[in-house]
């Protein structure tokens, strides 16, 4: 009979390695064999073996190495079975090549896996979920709930993407210098999409989403370590740190929404803000501006405003100008109009909102109507402000924000 305490220890050890190392072991195996699905299956089997063997023989000194060797054997068996004419030498050569791999290689393999997940040949909509599952090891059900998709649909889309990686021969490698900017952009975008899903859960009560923000920051840190000369990677890290630092102040104890200008600054995480400032400084040294650096610079200007008590609205307006020019995004133009209102008054802000034009997407875009409502209220066009508030409330899905908009609308002066 197996000794129960020993059994527990082995189980705990296997679980700890699973949590800590799953991502990098998958990255290593998938890159070696060009097959994410087979790598995941082999590693799962290796974990099962560990639970059977470790209680009997004790935990190995190098549990990761043990799991890697076990998974590698299973993968090679799997390859042999699937090969009509089996070549006995080749798998052994592969095995030798893998034993040579040192720990230093792991982060690079992981990065290569990120680039495979955000490959242009894969539907951009699945980049972020794929990255979360393959690189970070999140469960399909967990990802599905974060992205508001049914677990079955998410699982199917993930399997389809992983099958395409294998069958279409999508490589696991860090792109060459000349193609890096384009390819890096889609990696950064999927990291930011993961963060945004986590950020949407303001109170951090949904564990699946809370984790997404942290994991996204972890991946951005990894990117800056491995590609230290890429300013946009630093810019993205800075942007997410600025946002994350304000998480504790985004809601009152009662769960009420608090807009940026009314937040209790002492509840911001100032150590995290300092790290963000340092990352942004590092980015600006390369003198290659980009979307994430601009967005981080806007955050930095807001923080500076909070520190000194008066924000530099003209600087913020010109940063939004640059951002709108770079991305052509109506969202940047809306935010520019809000900043312009603070600089020159609400009627100039409203004129800027009108000038954005008749992009039909704006009709159903909550921040557009919320901005309009606020500026109309400040300009004294109360009936129009109430109408805009109604639309903004109708378009908002977060109950706390909805409640805040309802209160703002009620706080408008009476019309006579």
């Amino acid at each position, binding site marked *: 009979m197996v000794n129960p305490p020993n059994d527990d220890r082995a189980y705990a050890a296997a679980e700890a390695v699973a949590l800590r190392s799953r991502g990098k072991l998958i990255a290593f195996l998938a890159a070696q064999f060009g097959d994410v699905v087979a790598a995941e299956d082999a590693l799962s089997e290796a974990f099962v073996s560990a639970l059977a063997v470790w209680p009997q023989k004790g935990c190995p000194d190098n549990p990761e190495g043990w799991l890697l060797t076990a998974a590698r054997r299973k993968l090679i068996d799997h390859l042999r079975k699937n090969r009509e004419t089996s070549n006995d030498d080749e798998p052994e050569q592969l095995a030798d090549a893998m034993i040579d791999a040192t720990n230093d290689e792991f982060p690079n393999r992981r990065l290569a896996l990120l680039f495979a997940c955000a490959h242009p*040949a894969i539907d951009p909509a699945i980049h972020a979920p794929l990255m979360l599952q393959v690189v970070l090891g999140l469960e399909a059900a967990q990802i599905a709930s974060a992205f508001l998709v049914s677990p079955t649909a998410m699982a199917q889309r993930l399997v389809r993407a992983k099958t395409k990686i294998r069958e279409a021969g*999508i490589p696991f490698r860090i792109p060459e210098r000349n193609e890096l900017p384009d390819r890096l952009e889609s990696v950064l975008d999927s990291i930011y999409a993961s963060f945004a899903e986590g950020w949407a859960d303001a109170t951090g009560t949904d564990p699946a989403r809370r984790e997404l923000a942290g994991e996204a920051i972890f991946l951005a840190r990894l990117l800056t370590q491995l590609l230290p000369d890429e300013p946009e990677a630093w810019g993205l890290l800075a942007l997410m740190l600025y946002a994350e630092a304000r998480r504790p102040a985004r809601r009152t104890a009662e769960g009420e929404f608090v807009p940026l200008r009314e937040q209790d600054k002492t509840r911001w995480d100032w150590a995290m803000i300092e790290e963000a400032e340092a990352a942004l400084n590092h980015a600006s040294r390369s003198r290659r501006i980009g979307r994430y650096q601009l967005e981080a610079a806007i955050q930095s200007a807001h923080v500076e405003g909070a520190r000194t008590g008066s924000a530099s609205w003209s600087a913020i307006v010109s940063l939004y100008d640059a951002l709108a020019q770079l991305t052509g995004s109506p969202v940047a133009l809306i935010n520019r109009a809000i900043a312009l209102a603070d600089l020159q008054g609400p009627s100039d802000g409203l004129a800027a909102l009108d000038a954005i034009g008749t992009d039909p997407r704006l009709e159903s875009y909550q921040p557009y109507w919320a901005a309009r409502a606020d500026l109309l209220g400040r300009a004294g066009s109360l009936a129009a402000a109430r109408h805009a508030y109604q639309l903004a409330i109708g378009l908002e899905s977060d109950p706390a924000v909805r409640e805040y908009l309802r209160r703002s609308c009620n706080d408008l002066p009476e019309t006579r």
Partner: protein
Amino acid sequence: MQYLLALYMDESGWGRMTPEQQQQGAAAYTAYTQALKSAGVLINSNRLQPSPTATTLRTTNGKTQVLDGPFAESKEQLAGYYLIEAPDLDAAMQWAGRCPAVQHGIVEVRAIWAM
């Protein structure tokens, strides 16, 4: 790995070109094919007769039916293909991107099912 680059294009375009433009177009394909050959990448390549010459077969209710014309009626039709050898999809995509068809049509990259 082997990849098929399937070239789809609007067949009426060729007829609307001047003889000089046709000559230039053909020269671009010749140069591309030569580049694939010199790089040792090309396995096989062919231009197809226009899609109205296609004949389509399928079985309905146990009876084989023969139809005059291509399987799908659409503006862009399969016009030719290159079968190439490439280490991975990135390399295949790089070759596909150099194909003249990308400028005036569509190139679909498909991996060959390895037996």
